[in-house]
């Protein structure tokens, strides 16, 4: 069993993952990270305030960062306005 810790940073604060979770492969780690980011973004967007300045750091038990995801890279935004 290998535990990976998902820490959420926003430049000032860090929300530490006290528990970690057992994931089998790098692919599973990448998938879980993306799901985390998209889930938080989607729920925040319902509140009307999305923070794309978050970053998720996934660390192994020794504290080494094995994967990192900027929320900005988790979704593609199509910006623009329909002309009046």
């Amino acid at each position, binding site marked *: 069993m290998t535990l990976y810790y998902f820490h*959420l940073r926003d430049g000032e604060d860090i929300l530490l993952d006290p*528990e970690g*979770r057992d994931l089998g492969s790098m692919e599973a780690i990448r998938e879980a990270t993306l799901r*985390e980011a998209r889930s*938080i973004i989607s*729920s925040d967007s*319902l*509140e009307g305030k999305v923070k794309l300045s978050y970053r998720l750091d996934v660390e192994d038990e020794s504290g080494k960062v094995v994967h990192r995801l900027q929320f900005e890279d988790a979704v593609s935004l199509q910006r623009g306005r329909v002309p009046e």
Partner: protein
Amino acid sequence: MRNPLRLKLEQYAGFEEREGRRLDELVAQRTQVFAPKQDILTEGEKVKEIHIVLSGLAARYKLLDEGERQIMAFLIPGDICDLEVFVLEEMDHGISAMTETVCAVVPAETIKGLLTEMSCLTQALWWSTMTDSAVLRERIIDHGRRDARERIAHLFYELLVRYRIIDEAKDNSIPFPLTQEELADSTGLTPVHVNRTLKQLREDRLIELKGRVLKVLDPQGLRRAARFNPNYLHLRKAEEGLRGEADRVKDLV
């Protein structure tokens, strides 16, 4: 011996001494211990006996194709895992122990006998089953209408009420062996999202989580955060302000 089933059912029904004794015998016959993560019942299993949780915590769950798990309900002491045995052939979902969990194992025939003999038990078990479906309806509302904070606050407040009923919420502290992942599986959130929401609830001084114990610091505040309406638990004795069994939970509903 403590009998959480009786503590729960007497929120609805009044039992005479003899009936109470029968209920106590029911849970004292045979017990089985389940290790954390062990299945108490597996999806597809044909149920011949009824499992009543006496201590610990269990969860009804369903596994999806891609290995994802949805937890539909938590079973605390006094809850019955598989009353459907009388009507349905096999389990359409699994029940797993979240921590070491002790169940009373009662042959279906014994319960059948009791049901014929004690009409108040029939009514009480029916009440309990109806209330279980009402709890499930709340989970539907969770997914349709409640945000992350409301969902978790709602679950915590509900657990507080349910543990109070069975007299296991001293100082508003309840056993809480769940991991963030398990909370995520039950609320349809993701673990980091759960972690962030728990942090908010802690910072608002509504709860405290320490060493597998959840302490509700501000029940009224948590209730407001959850927009909790206790009517679905059908605690009629407490609602009517009756004295006695209802005292355990009166201030929360």
